[in-house]
């Protein structure tokens, strides 16, 4: 690819600029749909942007005894990792940066915000933050295994660790959501847990521990970490769309590269919004569960279901190879 085009891809479209806009838009859609489901009016379109600008302009308060450097750097690190992860998500056709094994990289980068939250919890020197941080990392150990397992199964079937290749594989065959329905459900649940939305908002349970690791965050730290969470939503839903719903590739060719690109982009939007709708409904329909209950449910049922799906995939693949 032309280096100039690559720079444009990374910075403008569908890189960082688009990502910022789309992340804020998805937050708007998230809040709006949730509000309407609860029979409320919800925020206006530019509210997430206004919140972001406002928080960026607010005073940054350092709690006593906090390591300022680390406290400043941690949200930026989370932000940087999820933005990097997005570059490997196919938005228009396949990603030009893709390489064999980028799926593992994306999953790894997606885990960083949670680890950062844990870190923030410890850095804050606040009892609520500490409890929240510990809960965040406990929760990570519960949902991460089935989530990873569910996301790696498409790779197993497609025979590649490359997201773009997996998307192309689905172009020729069926969507993985059809081939691995249990895996798809687990991926959605795992995504909900990763984004710490109800019923998995245990680390930031408002009525129990104020805002968990977020309690001591103010000003631009809060803004950046909040934005990083919004971007995780885009990356997460984009990843699930790519792995299970065929990504931005049409099953047939429209004949024109531009037309294919535009249609693919629209497909990306539709699919991520559809996943968001499922996530919001999930959020609106449930209350928060307790960490010990999540432990039970996560290891007994979700991990078990992931293993069953894995067995199913192995059998299916073996049958596929043999025929």
């Amino acid at each position: 690819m032309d280096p100039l085009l690559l720079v444009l891809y990374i910075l403008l479209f569908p890189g960082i600029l688009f990502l910022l806009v789309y992340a804020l838009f998805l937050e708007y859609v998230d809040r709006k749909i949730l509000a309407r489901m609860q029979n409320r009016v919800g925020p206006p379109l530019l509210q997430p942007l206004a919140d972001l600008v406002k928080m960026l302009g607010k005073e940054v308060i350092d709690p006593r005894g906090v390591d300022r450097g680390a406290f400043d750097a941690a949200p930026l690190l989370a932000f940087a990792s999820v933005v990097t992860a997005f570059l490997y998500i196919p938005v228009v056709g396949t990603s030009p940066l893709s390489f064999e094994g980028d799926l593992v990289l994306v999953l790894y980068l997606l885990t960083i915000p949670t680890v950062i939250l844990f870190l923030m919890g410890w850095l804050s020197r606040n009892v609520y933050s500490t409890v929240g941080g510990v809960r965040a990392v406990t929760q990570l150990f519960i949902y991460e295994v089935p989530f990873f397992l569910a996301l790696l199964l498409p790779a197993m079937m497609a025979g590649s660790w490359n997201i773009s290749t997996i998307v192309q594989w689905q172009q020729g065959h069926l969507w993985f959501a059809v081939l691995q329905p249990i895996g798809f459900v687990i991926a959605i649940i795992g995504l909900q847990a990763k984004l710490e939305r109800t019923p998995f908002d245990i680390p930031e349970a408002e009525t129990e521990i104020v805002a968990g690791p977020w309690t001591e965050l103010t000003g631009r730290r809060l803004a950046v970490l909040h934005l990083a969470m919004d971007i995780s939503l885009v990356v997460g839903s984009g990843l699930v769309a790519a792995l299970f719903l065929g990504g931005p590739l049409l099953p047939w060719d429209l004949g024109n590269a531009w037309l294919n690109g535009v249609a693919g982009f629209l497909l990306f939007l539709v699919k991520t919004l559809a996943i968001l709708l499922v996530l919001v409904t999930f959020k609106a329909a449930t209350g928060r569960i307790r960490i010990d209950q999540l432990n039970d449910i996560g290891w007994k049922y979700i991990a078990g279901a992931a293993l069953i799906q894995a067995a199913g995939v192995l059998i299916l693949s073996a049958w596929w190879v043999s025929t």
Partner: protein
Amino acid sequence: MSLLGDLISNLFRKPGTVLFPAENLPVPECFRGRIRITEDKCIGCSRCALVCPSQCILMVPDQKEIEVKGRKITRKKRPRVKVLRCIRCGLCEDACPSEAIHLTREFSVSGTVCETEEM
């Protein structure tokens, strides 16, 4: 009521919120709002000031000839109300013998000085 059905159908329903001040809830007929005093009717008997639980009504000297039920009397006092101290219980309205003080349907009264007085 199925939860999922309700969630989805709410998407296509009008939100329950009333967007004040663009929209207003209907104010019922008997609403207890801000106090108004019809000065011409007041006979200066001080009953409202005596019954007021928050003591927001103060009688001030004000000599005036008024006509009540065909009779001419001279009143010596008239009430002044600290509107922001008023708890809108309506006891003054009940106590008034000449229907001079009453609660209107105006619900929004705001200010910063709680001792603000007005007739």
